[in-house]
């Protein structure tokens, strides 16, 4: 899951609109002024646009849905073969260093279905996957679906909260930075965000643990060193306990992640700021804050929305490094354990879940674009 780095790498310099929608200046900017859903200009044209949209949207929706289903199916099939390429005999790897007889190895192979020919394994896998059964994990002896379901809430909670916070923070700071670009606030914000973005998350996490969990000098150890709960609590105390455990990992993820949203938002808003429609808006006598809020920001939002959804797609995969440093019982750690065996059914299942989350979020983004920008989907 290296998409994060890619998209940010390209977006730090030039505003990059991954959806391929026109958010750059020039002619399209003028067009955008007309098409943008600005409440001040209700005309016949806007009405026509709305009518066309109403007719086109179901077809657009069906197309996107179909595409998503096809991708998901492709993922399902590739995941089987992709991980068979990983070298290594799972049975040998699992029993390494343990007293094991040849009969026991044979039993394990039979239990895992590894004694069957590859095509049988594949048909069994397909039949299972289509009925929602992703198989049994080799190392944990439990259904893959169950294992994933066990760890998914923890990951969704941690990464989900972090993504929501850093997206919101990035949007807010990005807008401010762009609107007053070049000022000390802008320079401070972008500088700080970029510095934190370049910090390795595990290192920052460890520093936070040492500073705020163990305590350094006058700073008392306020937070737990790891885990998701202390155990033995229930009700509101449990919620508090989990929140207490979440503070440092969320802080780490937010600190390392918010620069991305900030920079994309800043760059795309800067692009909009040259737009003639803003001059028009000002000429109408709108106050500066309204110009930004009603005209500039909605037009600049599209690339950021794309990125927010990409980040939401990553939520399911969690963050292996942060989960490890804070011993958070999530999917990232499970994926690493599965890969190191390789625990084929578990790896396949996780791959399908990760890819599925990405496909779902992309689909959601696709469905939301036409609502944000009427030109999409026509």
């Amino acid at each position: 899951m290296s998409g994060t780095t890619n998209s940010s790498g390209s977006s730090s310099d030039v505003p990059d609109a991954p959806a391929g929608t026109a958010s750059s200046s020039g002619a399209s900017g003028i067009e955008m002024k007309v098409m943008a859903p600005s409440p001040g200009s209700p005309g016949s044209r806007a009405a026509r646009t709305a009518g066309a949209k109403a007719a086109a949207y179901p077809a657009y929706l069906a197309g996107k849905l179909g595409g998503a289903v096809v991708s998901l199916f492709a993922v399902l099939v590739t995941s089987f073969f992709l991980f068979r390429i990983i070298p290594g005999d799972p049975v040998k790897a699992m029993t390494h260093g343990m007293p094991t007889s040849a009969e026991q190895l044979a039993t394990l192979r039979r239990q895992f279905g590894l004694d069957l020919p590859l095509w049988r394994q594949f048909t069994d896998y397909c039949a299972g996957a289509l009925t929602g059964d992703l198989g049994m994990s080799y190392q944990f002896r439990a259904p893959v679906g169950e294992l994933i379901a066990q760890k998914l809430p923890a990951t969704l909670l941690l990464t989900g909260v972090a993504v929501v916070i850093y997206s919101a923070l990035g949007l807010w700071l990005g807008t401010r930075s762009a609107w007053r670009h070049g000022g000390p606030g802008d320079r401070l914000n972008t500088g700080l965000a970029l510095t934190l973005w370049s910090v390795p998350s595990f290192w920052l996490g460890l520093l936070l643990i040492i500073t705020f969990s163990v305590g350094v000098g006058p700073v008392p150890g306020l937070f737990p060193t790891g885990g998701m709960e202390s155990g033995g609590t229930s009700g509101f105390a449990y919620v508090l306990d989990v929140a207490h455990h979440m503070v440092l990992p969320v802080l780490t993820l937010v600190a390392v992640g918010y620069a991305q949203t900030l920079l994309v938002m800043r760059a795309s808003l800067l692009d909009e700021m040259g737009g003639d429609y803003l001059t028009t808006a000002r000429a109408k006598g709108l106050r500066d804050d309204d110009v930004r809020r009603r005209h500039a920001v909605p037009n600049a939002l599209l690339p950021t929305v794309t990125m927010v959804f990409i980040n939401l797609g990553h939520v399911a995969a969690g963050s292996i490094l942060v989960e490890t440093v804070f011993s958070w019982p999530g999917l990232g750690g499970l994926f690493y354990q599965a890969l190191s065996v390789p625990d084929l059914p578990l790896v396949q299942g996780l791959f399908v879940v990760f890819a599925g989350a990405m496909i779902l979020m992309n689909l959601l983004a696709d469905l939301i674009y036409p609502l944000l920008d009427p030109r999409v989907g026509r």
Partner: protein
Amino acid sequence: MITTAPHLSPRRNPLLGSHPGRRLRMLLAAGIAASALSAVSPQAQAQTQVQAQATAQAQAAGAVRGAGQFTDGRTSAAGTGMRTDDGKSDDKDGADNVLTVAVSQSVDSLSPFLAQRLVSTSIHRLIYEYLTNYDPGDARPIPGLATAWSPSPDKLTWTYKIRKDSTWSDGRPVTAEDAAWTFDKMMKDPNAATANGSFTANFAAVTAPDPETLVIRLKQPQANMTALDVPIVPKHIWEKVGDFSKFNNDTRFPIVGNGPFVLTDFKVDQYIRLKPNKDFWRGAPKFDELVFRYYKDGDAAVAALRKGEVSFVPNLTPAQAASLEDAENIKVNDAPGRRFFALATNPGARAKNGGRFGSGHPALLDPVVRKALFHAVDRRTIVDKVFQGHAVEGEGYIPPRFAPYFWKPGASQRIAHDPAKAAALLDGAGYRKNADGKRMGKDGRPLDFRILCHATDPNDKAVGKYLQEWWGDLGIGLKVDCLDNVSDPWLKGDYDLAFDGWSVNPDPDFVLSIHTCSALPATPSGTGATDNFICDERFDQLYAQQAVEYDAARRGDLVRQMQSRLYDTGFMNVMVYPNALEAYRTDQIKSITTMPEAAGNLYGQDGYWSWWSAEPAAAGRAASGGGGSSAAVAIGIGVSVVLVIAVGVLTSRRRRATADDRE
């Protein structure tokens, strides 16, 4: 970096300039709502689970207290009450002494029939009794569930006396029938033999003629009958299990057992909680609770130890150990380990049917070359530089902590560090250096070896560097192949040398068996239990003799002869015995038994000695522990207050904004 698009400088309204956009605010609010939503559902689930577990625990505690013996040593400990865990107690009667152990390995299964990982088998040692246990002093077999045992004169029938004073934690008595059923199940159901089938493969029949007698009949004599590492499970619980390959024993807590502890709660990769078994026949453990808490990162675990959140951390790196050396209230235990770290030489991979395969270097089939290579290895340097002193120089196959089997080569046999002799040996055998200083093989090609190294093990890499240097001086090239997955080339025999290591059990049968001909794969494409494709007639003869030798002294002698033979073949050259580095808090643990008792390790012992014997320190942890938990509440309240204020500010601003809009 900052794009300078042409633009008009925006006018600022001093009143509204600092307001974020309205849509932005809505987004923020939506975000908070979303996070709250996503937070609620898993917690709600977890809550109900926790409640269920709490009631289960309460029942367990009731059951355990029912009979109430062995409470003498406890009352005083409970009175001092030094440590409350961060969590609130659910069924506690006052402050508790909690022993918290940091672990990183995930539990593979809690079923004794499936579990293979160290963490799981260690837990099983704590919750189930085995027929025999190991003496903490010298690891010789001592009574466990069996109080006495004896073989028949023909060596094929073993009779065990089962103790009367052991009860399952649900109150039922433990009988020979439970043991017989456990072994019988493993013999008849291959799924039940997944983890420990090697012990029962040679069993002919297991019966329990009366509740105190267990009789095991064997097909062939078997020497490890006093070291059967098989947890005995309660028949009345386990006979209801359908498919043993799928039952993980993690659905109902507390788990019914008869060991020194009762497992009361388990959450994958979060914690394993155990309560002392107050009725345990050897005496109840002194701590009120034993918790294995997960720390996936070693440095985070060390931080937790410094803070006092955990009492014990195993598997330290030398750097971590050094940083803890002068920490207050922390004792670092640098204990002799149970592993050996060896240089394995490919003897020419082959299968039982005689088929040869792999690409081992032919020059290594010459004993002189193997001997010369090992003569050039400076084990002192490896101990000092690579292991930074946390290891012992190795020679024999079995580490010194297993005194009954430990062997050292005699002066004439010993392959000491002697590069000059190595060069002389090679010269004498016809491997001469050419003009470039490269030593030439018999086939006229230079001697260039490959060594398989585990990419995940920094020690392998470091030793590899030294070997390159030392063997380079001899004129021998070495390519260090560090792979994430060494097992593929290894199984195919595609290696010349390899870094090898095994953890040795008190009974050496298994680590010896992996070098016998019968462990070879049946065909070149199959896989066997063999470690290094060694097949040596003399070694096999000795192995067969020791396997049927029931006299401990004579068996020890045979095992030493085997090690001598293995040493002479030069296929397994043990370089060092790495130490086990671990640390614990002396303000939480007053005393704890190491194994071996004189100087030994605590984590991953062969018995349950460390956790069973651990005594809580009287020194107060209550203050900081209680402070931590009240700080937690304070912070929780603080966070919620901040959230409420934030939401309030947002709404009020929004109202104001709409008011502005209306003007």
